[in-house]
């Protein structure tokens, strides 16, 4: 019986009042749309990464090392090949390509491959010919951007190192290089023979040696990986199976989509607040009906069921609408991030994501309805006896009973979206803090009224007094708008900080170039060329490549490394990486000694200075002994101090510096940095490469610009999702304005009847909306600054600086937006004739 009555009443109430629910619907729709689009994108991206795991890796199993793989691995590979596996060897390194006709140069990434490459996925080339034909003889296959940047075409010649090659084609898709994030330059494919001719691979060159395997049908990858792993004792060799969990890129993208998802969740929460507010307003208007129903004998249960059912139906309708909107928007998101990820991401939304988004929308609606609905129980039927019904809903008798499921529900939603209890809890905490601040600001608005002097005009006093009017929902508007503003301004602040950081590096003493692989007998030539081309003298630093062989006499073995890897210890990198050692008499200018002391003389054996983080990761302190293997020769040094390195200063920085003399006799190359005027950059690069073809010139500005470009894309994507929040906030504001429309009309008419001009009434409106905007703007930007500070300090370790321009813009824009939207929603009220309105009273 209750059910039937509730359903019928719900339908009757809705058919009459659907217009009141537009704001409610908008809030739910926008929130769910945000979640659906981000969720689909994330799921599709993850799916692509999973599907393409083999192509991304390059094979079922990959073995890689910064040095030639060694006899043990070679033997194992031969055995596997004999058992039916296909092997492809790959060598990758950065180098300079030069156009012989114009002498223009470009940093490129060389990749020498076996004819069997690629083992999975397709290399898309133009012309569409097999790879071995394209790179036969002295042929190379280049990325399209190389042609653009050097002004070359297919068929032209290039000089790489000591070799002259011919461009035979263009590569448009490379299966195991999906993210241009990590690329320093365009790709160049060549054969091993051609690579040998370039004479670039010498002791000390940074080459990545890879072996890719395609296993016969049915053979599992992991045992093969384990087999290869135990075939070598070199700790730097890494064997990976395609189904190993979380190679770095996948983890990075998972994180990006998680954060995007949280931004989407903010939209939904803002929507939830809007929903709660809409339901409250709706129920307040229904107080007479509720009281009458109680008079007629309806139990509270039936009445609650009626409005709950109504809220549910609207919640479902809004959620479905939101899911559709999200699906429509998602391809745009894919397009935005396309430059960052060159993967084939599907645009069809996975059904379970759509289901999840809709569920979240419905659950949010339910949670938001709880509190207002429970207060129905407190409505007294005696209300009907009073001639003027109070406009307020009674408070709930036991608020904690209602609040607890609300908070738990929100936490559950956040954890579900974030996929992690910790992140979910942090999110809820941050959201709570934001809401408290904004609510406090909103409740401070009425205090403004009392603070205003008596002499302030009618428009001011009336405008501010209106903020306090019951049903004005000022608090809700400030909170929802404020949250949206917070997100957008935070993104802007972060982007500006990061861009400014990048800019500053360039304007500081950051060099324009890093020249690497400079041989001992090329130092003078390099100095001369740079001086002639730009009038500056490069700083030349000796470097020796070595690997860490032992700590305090304990050898660094493969077992030790594998153990750490299994424990998901990221810092195992410090054990396996190629160290670039140098020696110095004094600590470098940008380094600060934090423990121990720098050496003052060279007597007493080799000493070492270690960077703090590295020391922590290696577990060494002052007094420890580090043994390095410099191409077969052990060099032992005692740690005498630890250093703090300012990595933001883009000079040559070293993890380990040895005392002078420690590296005497070791094969040494040189790294040079030079700070040249921007106009001379191209000339310097071209002249250096022409004179010294084996030297690689890394143009810092170029790299930073690429980084800036990637940041731009990411920021745009985040802004797009954050926009849903602002739209939700505006929907709430419009809803509040619509709900109070008649009251506002009545008041404006009364004012005009007693002599106030329309301009005065308009000004009162402007004051009211302006105050809402300023409160939301101030609260939102303050929170944005705090949020940006947290992210910069704890996540990105970039210094935070006070950015008054952005903050002021935030407040001003919000105020302007609030006033504009307010006017658009209410200006027509001023056209109504007073008498007509008063008579209907």
């Amino acid at each position: 019986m209750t059910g039937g009555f509730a359903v019928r009443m719900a339908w009757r109430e809705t058919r009459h009042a659907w217009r009141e629910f537009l704001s409610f619907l908008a809030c739910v729709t926008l929130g769910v749309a945000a979640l659906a689009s981000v969720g689909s994108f994330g799921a599709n991206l993850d799916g692509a990464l999973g599907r393409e795991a083999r192509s991304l890796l390059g094979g079922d199993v990959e073995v890689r090392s910064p040095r030639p793989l060694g006899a043990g691995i070679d033997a194992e590979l031969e055995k596997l090949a004999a058992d039916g596996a296909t092997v492809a060897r790959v060598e990758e390194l950065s180098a300079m390509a030069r156009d012989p006709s114009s002498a223009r140069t470009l940093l490129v990434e060389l990749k020498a491959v076996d004819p069997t490459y690629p083992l999975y996925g397709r290399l898309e080339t133009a012309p569409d010919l097999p790879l071995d034909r394209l790179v036969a003889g002295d042929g190379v296959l280049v990325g399209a951007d190389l042609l653009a940047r050097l002004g070359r075409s297919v068929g032209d010649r290039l000089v790489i190192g000591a070799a002259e090659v011919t461009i035979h084609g263009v590569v448009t898709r490379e299966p195991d290089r999906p993210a241009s994030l990590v690329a320093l330059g365009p790709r160049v494919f060549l054969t091993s023979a051609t690579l040998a001719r370039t004479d670039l691979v010498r002791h000390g060159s940074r080459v990545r040696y890879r072996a890719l395997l395609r296993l016969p049908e049915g053979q599992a990858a992991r045992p093969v990986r384990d087999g290869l792993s135990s075939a070598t004792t070199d700790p730097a060799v890494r064997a990976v199976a395609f189904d190993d969990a979380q190679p770095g890129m996948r983890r990075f993208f998972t994180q990006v989509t998680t954060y995007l998802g949280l931004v989407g969740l903010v939209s939904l929460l803002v929507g939830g607040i809007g929903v709660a507010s809409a339901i409250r307003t709706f129920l307040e208007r229904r107080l007479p009906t509720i009281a009458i129903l109680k008079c007629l004998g309806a139990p509270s249960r039936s009445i609650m069921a009626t409005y709950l059912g109504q809220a549910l139906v609207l919640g479902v309708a809004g959620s479905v609408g939101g899911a559709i909107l999200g699906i429509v928007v998602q391809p745009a998101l894919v397009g935005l991030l396309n430059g960052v990820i060159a993967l084939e991401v599907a645009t069809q939304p996975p059904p379970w994501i759509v289901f999840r988004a809709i569920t979240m929308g419905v659950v949010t609606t339910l949670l938001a309805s709880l509190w207002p609905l429970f207060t129905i129980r407190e409505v007294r039927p005696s209300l009907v006896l009073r001639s003027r019904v109070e406009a307020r809903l009674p408070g709930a008798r036991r608020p904690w009973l209602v609040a607890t499921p609300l908070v738990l529900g929100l936490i559950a939603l956040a954890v579900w979206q974030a996929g992690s209890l910790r992140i979910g809890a942090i999110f809820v905490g941050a959201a709570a803090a934001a809401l408290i601040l904004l609510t406090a600001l909103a409740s401070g608005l009425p205090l403004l009224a009392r603070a205003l002097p008596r002499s302030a005009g009618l428009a001011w006093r009336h405008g501010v007094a209106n903020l306090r009017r019951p049903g004005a929902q000022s608090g809700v508007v400030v909170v929802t708008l404020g949250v949206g503003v917070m997100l957008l301004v935070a993104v802007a602040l972060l982007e500006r900080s990061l861009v400014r950081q990048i800019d500053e590096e360039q304007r500081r003493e950051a060099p324009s170039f890093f020249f690497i692989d400079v041989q001992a007998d090329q130092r003078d030539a390099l100095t001369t060329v740079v001086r002639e081309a730009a009038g500056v003298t490069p700083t030349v630093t000796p470097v020796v490549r070595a690997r860490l062989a032992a700590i305090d006499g304990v050898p660094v073995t493969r077992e030790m490394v594998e153990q750490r890897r299994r424990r998901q210890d990221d810092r195992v990198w410090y054990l396996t990486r190629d160290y670039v050692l140098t020696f110095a008499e004094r600590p470098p200018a940008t380094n600060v000694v934090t423990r121990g002391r720098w050496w003052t003389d060279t007597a007493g054996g080799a000493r070492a200075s270690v960077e703090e983080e590295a020391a922590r990761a290696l577990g060494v302190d002052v007094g420890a002994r580090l043994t390095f293997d410099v191409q077969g020769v052990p060099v032992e040094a005692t740690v005498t101090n630890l250093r703090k390195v300012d990595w933001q200063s883009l000079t040559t920085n070293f993890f380990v510096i040895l005392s002078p003399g420690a590296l005497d006799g070791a094969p040494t190359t040189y790294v040079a940095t030079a700070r040249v005027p921007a106009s001379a950059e191209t000339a310097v690069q071209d002249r250096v490469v022409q004179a010294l073809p084996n030297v690689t010139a890394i143009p810092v500005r170029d790299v930073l610009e690429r980084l800036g470009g990637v940041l731009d894309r990411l920021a745009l994507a985040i802004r797009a999702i954050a926009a849903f929040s602002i739209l939700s906030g505006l929907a709430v504001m419009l809803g509040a304005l619509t709900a109070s429309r008649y009251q506002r009309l009545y008041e404006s008419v009364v004012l005009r009847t007693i002599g106030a001009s329309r301009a005065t009434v308009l000004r009162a409106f402007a004051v009211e909306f302006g105050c809402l905007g300023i409160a939301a703007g101030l609260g939102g930007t303050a929170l944005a600054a705090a949020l940006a500070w947290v992210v910069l300090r704890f996540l990105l370790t970039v210094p935070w600086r006070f950015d008054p321009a952005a903050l002021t813009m935030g407040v001003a824009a919000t105020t302007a937006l609030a006033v504009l939207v307010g006017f658009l929603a209410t200006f027509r009220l001023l056209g109504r004739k007073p008498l007509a309105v008063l008579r209907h009273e």
Partner: protein
Amino acid sequence: MIIVVRDLVMRMTSGRHPLTVLDHVNLDVDAGDFVAITGPSGSGKSTLLGLLAGLDHPTSGSVTVAGVDLTRLSEDALARFRRRTIGYVFQSYHLIPTLTALENVAVPLELDGAHDPAATAMALLQDVALAERLHHYPVQLSGGEQQRVALARAVALTPPLLLADEPTGNLDSATGAQIIALLLRLRRERRSTLVMVTHDPALACHADRVVMLRDGRVVGEREGAPVALDS
């Protein structure tokens, strides 16, 4: 006795001032009687009527209707009680604005789980001469029509007790007379008890008994002079 009121006190706070609306009121009503409650405005008449229906809880005292002590019932129990026992007619009609006339009359029937509430409601509306207005909303009806719908609603479940609070207060005299005639007919047909609040002495004369209230106290009672208005 269908109504027994003993020592009823009702205090409310209006702003910061405590107000004694009813001051130790005693009242007995026999089943089937028509009792009018009169008094100047502010004398507590409407509040007394509301307490008879259990619309509020008194500060002290007891209200027993049809043998049930209302002061001991919970809100939901009161609602159930009201549904079956009481038909209430308000001065401002208090129809639900989002329901048609037919739906308004059907609400008590639906709440009670009656069979075919729509047919019963239609019959009721025909009985009050509103057969052409079944699907009109309250805003489309005149005051007199709205009150007729309210009357039909009040008697839908044939409650033993009818309470009417100034039922003609918002109507002109001609329409008011029609409404009163209708109310009395419906009451007679169903043999219900009727307690009506009015400050119109002419109306009060139709009652079996008139109870006079002033400043929250019963200051007098007299016999009415019932004249069949519809004969």
